[in-house]
């Protein structure tokens, strides 16, 4: 193992986009990295703060409420260039719900002005008529499953330059119409799944950690962990009613 490996995580708007237990995702990323003997540093990045794109391997941006989305959208625009550079240099981004919407081209609300995203992913979101709330099961292209809980009224549509994170087995997903959930473009991941997402989907957590570590440590792979408790929770969640 390379000497003194460190995973550096930037938690965007940590005190602001803090609903739906997204903190669990940061915990899962941190613990699972530490359990492999690799150090972790998590920095909360607040409104108005600068991002050092050299520093971070992994970025997390969670979900907030409508009112907060406007404030975040304006602030996030400042980071568009540095985040694009970071991704091109191998950094990984996980975005959930409101954060996921803002990484696309725009969010069009029922009333008022369009919120501009930072176009890091070829997606756009339109406010829907009904709120999509409930348990979700997703099958990824590699056959593995993701479980979580969705709570959104925005309907997200994917362009040709992104792939869905997976196909809906139960629940609504991106828009409730096309059977897709989430989006992946290189190292940029977006999804509507709360729950928290990563503690119950340890394979995805490890995928993100591995990709992020490879930014500085090419070819690194993670030692397996005892995931008995996580697996039971995952299996139980597969059987939950939508």
């Amino acid at each position, binding site marked *: 193992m390379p000497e003194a490996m460190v995973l550096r995580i930037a938690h965007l708007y940590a*005190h*602001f986009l*803090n*609903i*739906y*237990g*997204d*903190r*669990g995702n940061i*915990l*899962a990323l941190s*613990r699972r990295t530490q359990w492999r003997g690799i150090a972790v540093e998590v920095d909360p990045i*607040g*409104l108005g703060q600068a991002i050092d794109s050299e520093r971070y391997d992994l970025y997390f941006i969670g979900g907030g*409420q*409508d*009112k*907060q989305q406007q*404030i975040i959208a304006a602030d996030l625009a400042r980071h568009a260039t540095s985040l694009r550079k970071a991704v091109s240099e191998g950094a990984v981004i996980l975005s959930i719900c409101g954060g996921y919407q803002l990484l696309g081209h725009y969010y069009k609300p029922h009333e008022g002005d369009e919120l501009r995203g930072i176009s890091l992913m070829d997606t756009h979101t339109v406010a829907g008529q009904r*709120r999509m*709330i*409930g*348990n979700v099961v997703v099958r990824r292209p590699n056959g593995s499953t993701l479980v979580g*809980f969705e*709570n959104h*009224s925005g309907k997200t549509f994917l362009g040709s330059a992104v792939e869905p994170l997976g196909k809906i087995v139960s629940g609504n997903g991106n828009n409730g119409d096309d059977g897709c959930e989430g989006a992946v473009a290189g190292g940029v991941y977006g999804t509507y799944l*709360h*729950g*928290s997402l990563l*503690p*119950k989907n340890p394979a995805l957590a490890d995928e993100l950690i591995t990709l992020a570590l490879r930014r500085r440590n090419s070819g690194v792979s993670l030692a397996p962990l*005892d995931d*008995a*408790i*996580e697996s*039971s*929770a995952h299996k*139980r*969640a597969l059987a*939950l009613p939508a």
Partner: protein
Amino acid sequence: MSDNLAILAGKISANAIRALGAGLGSNLPGRVARKLSPTVLNRLAVQSRSGVVAVSGTNGKSTTSGFIYSILRRAGFKTVHNKQGANLVTGITATIVEAASIDGKLDADYCLFEVDEASLPVVASETPIKAVVVTNLFRDQLDRFGELDTTAKLLNKGIARNQSPAILNADDPNVAQLAEGSRRLFYGIESLAQNNQQPITRGAMELSYCPKCGAEYSYDLIFYGQLGHYACAQCRHSRPRPDICATDVCIGKSSTRFVLRIGEESFNAQITIPGLFNVYNALAASAAAAWLGIAGVTIVEGLKHYNTLFGRSEQLVVNNRKLLIQLIKNPAGASQVIGSAAADPNGRILIAINDNLADGRDISWLWDAEFEQLEKHPNPIVVSGQRADDMAVRLKYAGFPPERIAVTHQLERALKESIGQVGPDQTLWIMPTYTCLLELQKILKSMGHSLSGT
């Protein structure tokens, strides 16, 4: 005429439900009565001689209205109260129908209703609300209402309907910004006793940003969650000065003392339930009572003689073993309860999590509750309920050793095994979500023990 029929039908179905031994706080009698006469709630509520007091907010509705009831009783008033916590319009209708006579008369000074946040607009449109008390606004069952902002809008709508005076928590920025343009009375905590300073925790912080300009609030004091003494550095929007407040709050193991200030007067107050959150509940009740013109000495008496409610800090002895049941339902309340349990390293712990509608179907909130406080707890922890596995994952990632987590989905087995492991000098801390609490109530009943509210 149709009212009388509705009342009769409501009473009959209430008796039938009791005879069948179904759960408490049922909405069915109210639903039946409203079907027969949609105006029954209005026609009965307008007969209350002094009007309706509504209590709403995320946490503490039941305890706050329990305190108010106790004060009103001390003051000699006859009060109709939905004390079993059925706080939707159907449950409130059921409560008032049960209190009415067959010929449609209501003999009461006050109607005291704890009201679900989403139900406040409809209850306000049907009853003459004299005052709306709001406890706090935390994230609770977001999957039901969508978002916190939606909840604030619902409360504002309910308050505006009768131009009711609003009795608001000055320390909660989410609450203090409600009902602008209405008559408002504020309550809050001014100071903790010297030897009682608590560490500042921001774990369950909900909205720490100014609603006026979006800048971050700065706090001189944080009591818990977003509750404290806040001010916006940018636009100077700040915590309103409370009209009724507590100073020198001294939290003991089983009771709390403080100085209650109502205007220029001061009283020594004591409540026999622990936790800072219950001081807020007592303050909300005191402010409501003061607003109704009840004397300070009577308020203090009422606070002192209040008994605990179903599942809130309930203590009982089963097989010579001490049990303490503390309902958990959202991050702020749960973090407080977890803190109390963590302060008893000798204690045993049982956590039971369901995800039915009444619990909130989204259990993400477990990740915002500070289970990290249990990281160093020396005894095993039993987890139970439909989402026991998620709770086990939560404890593991909180740093609690996985080998000391016991998953027993079936609650009856989990309870009996837990009681079996409790020593004579130990307490079993039970933290259930709402429908787990209902289940526990049944199990304990079959063992010959009853919880309050039954």
